[in-house]
């Protein structure tokens, strides 16, 4: 995986599969406007696993729904750039958008118990996406569904095809959702906390499965989670979100070994050995509360919880490059990236 991306980097940079610049999502609420996503930047390369990680409420789901074009009707979206493989998602017609959905970008949701229609068989729900997007026979669609059910580890697949969602456990349903997302061989799968609702052993299985299939099919995945243990297991690259912003992005390696934002560092301090972290460890050990996203957030959003904060932090920090493809939204990003300097800083301060 990493070999492949370093080759791509050394030649002329191929355009990424998805690039997002200054994406904002606003929701009207009783008290004013809730800025759920406040100008985030990230990109996804072909075939890579990008983890979007952050506390509950930081705007991960809103980001994914904005990418899919499935935001609630009252939500307002704008961005400087929202480009999916050459298609401008901001100006694309609803018809073209629905041609992309399910075919080239698919989504797996958090709640497997309610994400499938109780009135139709699994076979029916698996096949319909393929038959909507491609001119294939009923038989061909059936065969593909059967193949994918087997690939996601469902035994007695032929029989399962005729069953209804209520006859399956949560773990099995999430496997079906994965198979469903793969039906049209999409370029991008957005998985919004696909393992959060499952118990720990099932979580690990589903995680493995997703990682295996992603590598086998070469599908890019945006994996959304609030669980750093999960990130450590599967991510190629990571984007850490806080209060509607991406505050640090880096390769998984760099993020765990040289975190360059106080928030990321705080998160990692709560986990003694990142590589051995069990799935299920939650991001909640940093004292303090997230600022309200209604109205404008002044200065650095992390300011009230940050050990390093000083008067500079009343102004909004820019995204700073601390290393190749490693960005951090902190005034002290460079010092933080190098622990030696920060010690010196603390002495001089």
């Amino acid at each position, binding site marked *: 995986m990493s070999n492949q991306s370093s080759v791509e980097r050394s030649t002329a940079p191929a355009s990424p599969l998805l690039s997002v610049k200054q994406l904002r999502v606003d929701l009207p609420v009783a008290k004013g406007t809730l800025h759920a996503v406040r100008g985030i930047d990230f990109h996804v390369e072909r075939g890579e696993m990008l983890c979007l990680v952050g506390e509950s409420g930081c705007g991960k789901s809103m980001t994914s729904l904005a990418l899919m074009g*499935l935001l609630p009707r009252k939500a307002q979206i704008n961005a400087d750039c929202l480009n999916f493989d050459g298609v401008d998602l901001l100006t694309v017609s609803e018809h073209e958008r*629905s041609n*992309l959905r*399910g075919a080239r970008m698919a989504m797996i*949701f958090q709640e497997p118990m*309610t994400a499938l*229609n*109780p*009135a*139709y068989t699994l076979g029916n729900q698996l096949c319909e996406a393929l038959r909507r997007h491609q001119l294939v026979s009923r038989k061909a669609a059936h065969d593909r569904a059967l193949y994918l059910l087997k690939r996601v580890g469902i035994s007695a697949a032929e029989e399962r095809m005729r069953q209804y969602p209520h006859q399956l456990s949560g773990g099995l349903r999430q496997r079906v959702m994965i198979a469903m997302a793969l039906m049209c061989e999409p370029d991008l799968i957005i998985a919004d906390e696909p393992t959060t609702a499952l118990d720990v052993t099932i979580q690990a299985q589903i995680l493995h499965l997703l990682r295996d299939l992603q590598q086998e099919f070469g599908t890019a995945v945006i994996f959304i989670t609030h669980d750093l243990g999960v990130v450590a297991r599967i991510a190629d690259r990571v984007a850490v979100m806080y209060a509607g912003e991406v505050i640090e992005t880096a390769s998984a390696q760099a993020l765990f070994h040289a975190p360059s934002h106080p928030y990321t560092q705080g998160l990692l301090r709560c986990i003694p050995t990142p590589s051995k972290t069990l799935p299920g460890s939650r991001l909640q050990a940093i004292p303090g509360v997230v600022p309200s996203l209604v109205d404008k957030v002044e200065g650095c959003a992390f300011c009230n919880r940050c050990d390093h904060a000083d008067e500079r932090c009343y102004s909004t920090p820019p995204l700073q490059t601390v290393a190749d493809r490693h960005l951090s939204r902190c005034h002290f990003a460079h010092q933080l990236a190098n622990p030696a300097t920060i010690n010196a800083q603390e002495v001089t301060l």
Partner: protein
Amino acid sequence: MWAFVFKRTLIALSVALTISVLCFSLLQLSGDLALSIGGPEATAEQVEQIRTDYGLDRPVIQQFTSWLWGAVQLDFGRSYYYQSDVMDLVVERLPVTMTLGVMSLAIALFVSIPLGVVAALKRGSWIDRMAMAIAVTGQAMPNFWFGLTLIILFAVKLQWFPAAGSDSWQGFVLPAIALGYYATPAMMRLTRSGMLEVLEADYIRTARAKGLRTGTVIFKHALRNAVIPVVALAAVELGFMLGGSVVIETVFSLRGLGQLAWNAISRNDYPVVQAIVLIIALFYIVLTLLADILNAVLDPRLRAR
């Protein structure tokens, strides 16, 4: 599935038995039958004579079992007024009432489901408010009054349909509208609220995430789940309509079960009243059973229970 049908049928049968007991005892409770059959001028001897003739001097339990035994064989005795077999009277009138009921239900379904779907999709629009207005008016208007209005407008003024009679299908149009309109509001509102709820469901978002066409999302994924409660309501409404046919058949002079019931009640023709009450109750039970089965067909989760 078959276990489900069997279970529901057993329940339906026990309900039917309970109804027949109630049906029989209601008339027992309504006073001394021999007295009311004889009328105010009857002498004590005449009343005694009636009592023995009609078997009313037997113990209640014996009267019940012999009546029930007859009813099971579709023998409800003889009408006091028409002096003919009750079952013959019923069989003669039944097709009229059934036609009226089915037509009314069809009209109600054809109006209420599309209107409910559109009202839910265009919530707050003029069409939603109009549908709501129709619902409120429909629930407030007595159906005999609405029936008379239809007669004045479409039979007397415009002369599109006959005002009375059940000789041709045209005769059924106005009464079916009058009766169907009565059932429309509840079904429309249930469709609307069902659609609103279902459209918020996670599986609708999944369907949209698959890129399915709007029509597929609405009709295949949403409506299918939203109409499940409407089916149950439709069965109840058809039952109500059979009851409502007493009034409407009288207004439109249709020779149906409702009119027969009305005549029988006003003439103290107890065997006929008993038979009709029991038959309508049985229809109601059968309809509920059918609705249960249809629900299970629509909602696979119910089959397991």
